[in-house]
């Protein structure tokens, strides 16, 4: 199969899966009688509806190619950072630094992916941005909680821009025997992370009893994690044919993606709760904000990128 055919099969498979989920959602919605059951199903159905939109957005970006995909992720970073900064207590002295983070750092980081300048892409934020941002805050001459403010802004930029940008950066890897198929690798990453999230939610709702980290995220359970993670790794292994990996390598990669995604979800949930919020926003109905959907990707993307680069790219 050529990459185009693989992509078409993939989209057809996902559309079938979503169609089944949609029909099941309708049937459940008509059958369920209890009040609490009804709200769970309503939430499930809004999630499924949002899924259709998300798959459509990624499908369109794939068809329009590399630039569209990079622009899409730049917008995702922008909206995620907006949610992060909204919940972060900053002071007027940080205004310059924040403007630069949104209107200079995001475009430059994604431009570097576009021109495939790998070396600068990996150090631009940790070196240049992280020295520039506190310098700009310092110009505001406000020392009240300066270290805390600087640390929070840098962490926001790290997660929402640096980490998330590693997902489209998969497009700049040169993997022998895999030319012209990098976009499928990006699709693979997103598919595994999201399937893992969905199945953890489903297994958790069905069998969940013992919370993994009750303080940080009451909805995540051991049963959900075991059921969701093992099925997602199974899917990851079964999807080896769209990747440059063998089935065993694909299972190993999927395990790393699932584990990193799981930790990302919990860490960002802890951050969110430390700021006194339950969701990052209300942008995607049923899912909360953009960052509620991207939390797992933000941890999985850089690790998947570097493992693939180290072992498979030249």
């Amino acid at each position, binding site marked *: 199969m050529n990459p185009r055919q693989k992509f078409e099969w993939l989209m057809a498979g996902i559309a079938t899966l979503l169609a089944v989920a949609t029909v099941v959602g309708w049937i459940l919605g008509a059958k369920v009688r209890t009040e609490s059951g009804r709200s769970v199903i309503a939430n499930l159905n809004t999630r499924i509806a949002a899924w259709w939109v998300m798959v459509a957005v990624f499908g369109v970006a794939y068809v329009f190619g590399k630039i569209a995909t990079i622009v899409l992720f730049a917008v995702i970073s922008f909206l995620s950072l907006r*949610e992060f900064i909204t919940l972060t207590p*900053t002071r007027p002295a940080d205004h310059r630094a924040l*403007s630069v983070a*949104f209107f200079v750092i995001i475009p430059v980081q994604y431009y570097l992916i576009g021109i495939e300048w790998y070396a600068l892409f990996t150090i631009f934020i940790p070196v240049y941005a992280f020295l520039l941002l506190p310098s700009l805050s310092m110009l505001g001459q406000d020392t009240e909680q300066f270290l805390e403010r600087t640390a929070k802004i840098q962490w926001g930029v790290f997660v929402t821009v640096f980490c998330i940008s590693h997902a489209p950066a998969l497009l700049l890897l040169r993997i022998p025997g895999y030319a012209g198929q990098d976009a499928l690798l990006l699709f693979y990453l997103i598919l595994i992370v999201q399937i893992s999230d969905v199945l953890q939610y489903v297994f958790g709702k069905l069998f969940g009893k013992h919370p993994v980290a009750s303080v940080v995220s009451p909805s995540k359970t051991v049963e959900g994690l075991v059921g969701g993670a093992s099925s997602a790794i199974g899917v990851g292994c079964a999807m080896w044919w769209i990747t440059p990996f063998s089935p065993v390598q694909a299972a190993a990669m999927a395990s790393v993606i699932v584990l990193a995604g799981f930790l990302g979800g919990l860490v960002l949930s802890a951050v969110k709760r430390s700021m006194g919020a339950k969701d990052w926003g209300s942008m995607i109905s049923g899912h909360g904000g953009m960052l509620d959907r991207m939390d797992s990707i933000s941890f999985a993307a850089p690790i998947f990128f570097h493992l693939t680069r180290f072992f498979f790219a030249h």
Partner: protein
Amino acid sequence: MWVSYLLIGLLRLLVGAAPRFVVPLQSGVRRIFFANHSSHVDTLALWAALPRPIRDRTRPVAARDYWGKTALRRHFAVKGLNAVLIDRNRDDPSQDPLQPLTEALERGDSLILFPEGTRQAQALPGPFKSGLYRLACLFPDVELIPVYLENLHRCMPKGTLFPVPMICTVRFGAALPRLAGESKESFLERARQAVVALA
């Protein structure tokens, strides 16, 4: 008007401006929306948060000394936002500065007013100027709706050139009741408290 759609699109990307209604707004009623004022984008945010049929009949009140200064600003204010320009500094003492507002209300339009008169650096509004009281007396049947603009003081505070994108919520309260024989001072303070209560 394409300028309106361009402005609203940019605003949604920048601050979101999602509305929250304490009481749903019916269309076909004349209103004065009054809100706290802390940034350059306040007017646009409140206007964009209104449901379309109400927005079409609602005109923001803007200072002529700022929005009338250049042709571009005037174009954005008058064509884009359908604003009513008022003379804050009373350049012509024989003219009543509220006259353009009373004319708009008489025509059946609603108004967006920032009774503090100028932008504040903090989250809660300062003392209100008397324009709102005078309009309330002249038009006893116009609904007075308090509005709180959350987070916008962080987005584009006074003296800054570039905005910081921030999710802003626009909270519309219930209409302020009229009390018979109330003094100007107590009315203005009650109106201010109605905005503070939404914060």
